């Protein structure tokens, strides 16, 4: 069943992604990409459970490393996006 639900979700996400992204002006492509990129750092959530499993095995270390990498992506991604957008604002006003 899960697969079915996930397929539904995937299908809906694709449609939604399409609707959201079409018609975005070219000037916003870079921040949009960067913003989406930050979201893809969601892997951090998966990494957390591995990094916190307390078993000090391979998976644990890998998980911790994954947390670090994903955090770079998340924190850096959001901050960079915000900086870009702040620049936009200045140009507009």
């Amino acid at each position, binding site marked *: 069943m899960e697969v079915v639900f996930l397929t539904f*979700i*995937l299908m809906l996400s*694709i449609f*939604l*992604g399409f609707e*959201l*992204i*079409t018609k*975005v*002006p*070219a000037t*916003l*492509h*870079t*921040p*949009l*990409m*960067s*913003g*989406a*990129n*930050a*979201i*893809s*750092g*969601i*892997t*951090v*959530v*998966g*990494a*957390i*459970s*591995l990094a*916190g*499993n*307390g078993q000090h*095995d391979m*998976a644990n270390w*890998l*998980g*911790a*490393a*994954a*947390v*670090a*990498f*994903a*955090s*770079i*992506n*998340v924190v*850096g991604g*959001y901050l*960079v996006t*915000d900086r870009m*957008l702040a*620049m*936009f604002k200045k140009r*507009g006003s």
Partner: protein
Amino acid sequence: MESTQLTIQLAYVAAAALFIYGLKLLGSADSARKGNLLSSVGMLLAIVAALLDQGIVEYQWILLGFVVGGAIGAAAARLVQMTAMPEMVALFNGFGGMASLLVGAAALSGSSNTFTLVTIVLSILIGGLTFTGSLVAWGKLSETLGSGAVMFRGQQIVNSLIVLAILFSAVMFCLQPENSIWLYAVIALSLLFGVMAVIPIGGADMPVVISLLNSYSGLAACAAGFAVNNNILIVAGSLVGASGIILTQIMCKAMNRSLSNVLFSGFGSVSSEETVIEGEIKPISVEDAYYILEAATNVAIIPGYGMAVAQAQHVVKELTQLLEKKGAEVNFGIHPVAGRMPGHMNVLLAEADVPYDQLLEMDDINPRMETVDVAIVIGANDVVNPAAREVESSPIYGMPVINVDQARTVFVLKRSMASGFAGIENPLFYKENTRMLFGDAKESISGLIRELSN
């Protein structure tokens, strides 16, 4: 399902909603910053929810990961120069891919069900190629590597071999998960493939590649989600994957190239070194023209008889106003013989109330042409015919014309490939930087106005 678990899951739903809404807001300049904020709140929510998970017994490693990663990310984001943002995004994206690879690899220890194995191999594969692909993209953009396309003879064969090897190791890995050689092979090959896939692509195309890799990192997260059985990874990952793909497509369109052209043009070109780029007609759609026009800050409009025929003067005036409102400088280049009677263009443009000081004579606009981003030729033909400069045998050789071909991009608005009054072919239409916007000039411009005022 117990209530903590339910709470966590509902928090994930909320986080996903925030991501979606954030992406939506990112699509318009006014609200983009708020969108980014919302999206980051969603991320925070997801992380907090993840931390509540009962499976977690130790926090120090998580914390360490956070602190190290967060600090690096924050520092990089703060310190990077404005101009270096795109490559920074590429780098971050690569780290996202790496995280997915690691999660995939880590998840291996837990399970050995085939479905999970497939998802693990996918997350490693996609994550790995995203990682090295992004690194190469970063290198090209930051000029750490040469920004040119790297090509060598036999590239296609090498790449095909890599793909085959990946497929083989992936299958073997699923069959023999305990034999870690396959795991390492998959990792190594995916890393290698990321490099090979990106090096043949030129620096100018990197934004498209980054966007695509961004989409991949979403898919990698999605695959990792399957591997560790986590909803939010799947939802957010597929969302990023889907919107990334679409964004990539849009960017390709804006560059007037197909995705496969971007990705594989490098591969093919070595074998066909001798082909000289012969001029060809490049039609463009109104939407694509809009994307180019949108980014222009210096626009020249060259009207001709076709503007008169289409009675497009009023919409032309509106177009200039819109472009000016967007901050572009707009001038008209009036060729003395444009139209069918002396002063034909003047009559029409005065009717549409175009201010006199926006009308430049040919001799005034020609020296500026090189600084023009987009020259829009509206139903003119003979008066912009570079044959007058270039082709000695042409009947109009020696006549001064408006040198639109020296502008960065030229749009030619006309209905067909028909010639003008003088009845001669126009090489302008075949130039590298020319795009033909076919159709009645008035309709084409109305279309542009529609796009511009959205």
